[in-house]
């Protein structure tokens, strides 16, 4: 029996789908209802650590500031490289010009923080609703503060972005200011998506060993040292949530290298092989370079496989990492996928991943959290990957969970993190078995 047929209202959702037939080859449960996800502002928490010369100024409400400190545990830094310009009654009632107020706040901020070289004005739900033009503000303020500070803008609002889409919007805002790679320059590789520095360095070493030397990274560790882009750029997505950034890069002539995402030994191999193929590297050499780290990853994963094999897992929508992670857990650790939910399914970027996921797996896009939780209660998976608001309540119902957010903050890409990634799923299960209280 199809898992979808058993669900109320799902068939109707499918029937209403207005996507072309070719795209709906495999059934996807599309849901609309309460979404239990972070908004795109949350991306600031890792982006500000990655780009060490950048500051993120959210133009929003007290809720935005509260979200950032609650999600990030921000009380930690007396002066982190982000802040919120909280709009007040005066700004909304037209008693003051919001643009003037923004100038005042930005000037004060830049005066106090001379170390800032790039300032992102980040739009929020309220700033979008009142149509506060941050592009105009960025242009105006940029004219004053360039060359010392470059001022850019993007929206991390919850009405437009879900969680990791905030990074997508931020990187897309960087693309227009990337230097141009001249038309006669040799082919260059561009890795797109923020990675922990240690993982980024591992990949750069591997590309070097493969013989690909011209490699750029977006975002760069310093937002002012952006890599070049042009018709000879071939880009490789390190993260599955970068649809807008990819479009912006294509707009500047770059072409995407189709690959699986670099999770697990197989995903990482496929990702590196795809790049090597594009750069005409000899296949035998590629296999020679990959052999050792790949074998190391397999060895490490073999230790964890007994703990995860045959275990049933459900992903609730969170970071868009769900599909590639599900593929990894299924193919390399033998887990059984029950439901793979994702806030947004980018079919083109995920095509090779989706090929690996069988038709018996319930794939869902969007969310109606109450119905989804009903399905979790019916399915009773061994482990459910979900957000922080849902984890303890599900544990309290006897369902083991894994906080999805940890998957975004931990180094999980590449060969040498494959076992760390598996461990994130194995630990809650092990703990469940250990506790005798």
């Amino acid at each position, binding site marked *: 029996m199809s898992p979808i047929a058993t669900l109320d209202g799902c068939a109707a959702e499918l029937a209403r789908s207005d996507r072309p037939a070719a795209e709906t080859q495999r059934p996807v449960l599309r849901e609309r209802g309460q979404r239990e996800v972070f908004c795109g502002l949350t991306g600031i928490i890792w982006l500000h650590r990655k780009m060490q010369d950048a500051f993120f100024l959210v133009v929003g*409400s*007290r809720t935005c500031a509260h979200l950032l400190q609650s999600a990030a545990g921000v009380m*930690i830094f007396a002066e982190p490289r982000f802040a919120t*310009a909280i*709009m007040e009654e005066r*700004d909304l009632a037209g008693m003051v010009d919001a643009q003037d107020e923004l100038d005042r*706040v930005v000037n004060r901020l830049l005066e106090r923080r001379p170390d800032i070289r790039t300032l992102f004005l980040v739009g929020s739900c309220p700033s979008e609703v009142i149509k506060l033009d941050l592009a105009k503000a960025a242009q105006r303020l940029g004219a004053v503060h360039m060359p010392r500070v470059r001022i850019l803008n993007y929206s991390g609002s*919850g*009405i437009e972005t879900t969680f990791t889409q905030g990074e997508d919007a931020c990187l897309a805002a960087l693309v227009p200011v990337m230097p141009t790679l001249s038309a006669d320059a040799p082919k260059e590789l561009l890795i797109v998506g923020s990675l922990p520095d240690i993982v980024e360095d591992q990949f750069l070493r591997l590309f070097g060993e493969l013989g690909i030397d011209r490699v750029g990274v977006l975002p760069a560790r310093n937002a002012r040292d952006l890599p070049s882009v042009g018709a000879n750029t071939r880009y490789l997505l390190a993260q599955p949530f970068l649809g807008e950034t990819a479009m912006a890069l294509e707009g500047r002539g770059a072409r995407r290298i189709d690959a699986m995402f670099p999770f697990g030994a197989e995903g990482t191999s496929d990702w590196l092989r795809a790049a090597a193929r594009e750069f005409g590297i000899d296949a035998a050499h590629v296999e020679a370079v990959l052999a050792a780290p790949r074998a190391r990853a397999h060895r490490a994963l073999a230790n964890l496989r007994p703990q995860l094999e045959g275990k049933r897992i459900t992903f609730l929508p969170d970071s868009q990492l769900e599909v590639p992670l599900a593929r990894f857990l299924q193919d390399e650790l033998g887990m059984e996928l029950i439901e793979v939910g994702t806030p947004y399914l980018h079919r083109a970027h995920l095509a090779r991943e989706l090929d690996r996921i069988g038709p018996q797996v319930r794939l869902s896009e969007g969310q109606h959290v*109450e119905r989804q939780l009903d399905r979790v209660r019916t399915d009773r998976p061994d482990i459910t990957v979900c957000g922080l608001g849902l984890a303890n309540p599900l544990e309290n119902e006897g369902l083991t969970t894994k906080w999805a957010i940890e998957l975004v903050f931990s180094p999980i890409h590449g060969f040498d993190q494959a076992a760390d990634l598996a461990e994130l799923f194995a630990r809650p299960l092990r703990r469940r078995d250990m506790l005798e209280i």
Partner: protein
Amino acid sequence: MQLAVWTYEGPPHVGAMRVATAMEKLHYVLHAPQGDTYADLLFTMIERRGKRPPVTYTTFEARDLGKDTAQIFQDAAREAVARFKPQAIIVGASCTAELIQDDPAGLSEAMNLPCPVIPLELPSYQRKENWGASETFYQIVRNLADKTLVREPREGRKARVNILGPTALGFRHRDDLVEIRKILALLDIEVNLVAPLGATPEDIARIGAADFNIVLYPEIGDEAARWLERTFAQPAVRTVPIGVGATRSFIADVAELAGADPTPALGDTSSRMPWWSRSVDSTYLTSKRVFIFGDATHAVAAARIAREELGFEVCGLGCYSREFAREVRAEAARCGVEPLITDDHLAVEDAIAAAAPELVLGTQMERHIAKRLGIPCAVISAPVHVQDFPARHSPQMGFEGANVIFDTWVHPLVMGLEEHLLTMFREDFEFSDEAGASHHAAHSPRKATVAPVREPEMAGAAFAPAPAIEAAPAGDDSLMWTAEAERELKKIPFFVRGKAKRNTENFATAEGRRQIDLETLYDAKAHYAR
């Protein structure tokens, strides 16, 4: 626009959530975009609640704007009522939904829902969390209280009381309530209702049956209590029983309103704090300089305990809630300090650095500030952190609360006898400065030459990104210490050395001396002698 890095209070709808989550069989339909659901994790992660807050968010998106956000609200409300079958719902908007003006009140009224609907107007761009909680609780009481209820004659029954104010995500509300119930049991008084914590809408209906009210947390309960005073002629006890003296006054006030004998409660033999404070080993606490910051109720109570029950000197007092600034100003006047009423934590940090206290009593934010400055600290107030929900019983109120406060405040300090030993044996290699207090290392001051390290720490909610070391502020280097004076400074025990250095430098600056020699050092010591 106000530039904020960190806020003491969330938006007002989070206050409403604290009330809704505290109650049973009440549901909150909140018109809000996706992302606002982050607030759930405050309750499930920080407070470790095993249930989701009873909140349905409409989570509208940009493409819905100007089309069918009103319909989305009505669908969400209808579904929530059908699924959760609440006895009543509260409806309202978050900051974004307030801007699109869908009027949740009007929309839900038009729906003929099978339960009472209480509309909330919480202006997000003017007000904050505590006000939101207070207003929500007031509206719930006003809408649900059975106004036709006639109180039974007092003769032949126990006195009845309502306890108003405890909510979800409150600072030790769970444990305070246990202590208050204990006192009321000793006085033979019946609890008619505790609200919001644990109350259902049907319970609220009979709120008028009580003879009087106890306003445990004025920030949340006072607005409702004033309405109850007018509507049901219920007097209120407003003494907040934090500290031994306040607990005694509270017992006396409650007993008087109930016509009960206060003796059994006043004679509670588990009150150890007075003796712990009078015993000779506590002498070293005398005139320790404390800086206090928190919500008004806890800050004022802390100041009184510090002065009257521990013999501290209050060198700074403030709160982040403007609504209750008056109480803090009055207490600050009694302490002889300027009140600090602000929600800018950077201003608080500056004030603490300037006051150079020996102990900070504050919120989680002040705990971080104190850690950076190398000053011992204890937490006395919300905003809360996962550490503020200990597994053990840990009240602030009542005699047991005073016992807990004694331990919590005194523990971070270097102990009295140890202070003397460190002075006596300071030349001994085993008593090196780096050793710090023996009973725990957490508060040992850093070496003066090391820049303050801003360490990341879990806020309870989520995760901590990679450690960040931000640039240390440049010190005042216009003053020059002679080598001899510097050597002498090093002979001063480390836990007072920082203060001695600051005092000496302040003294030198005030005196216009550019160079600090032995003479200046001891002149300053004489100047600051107390």
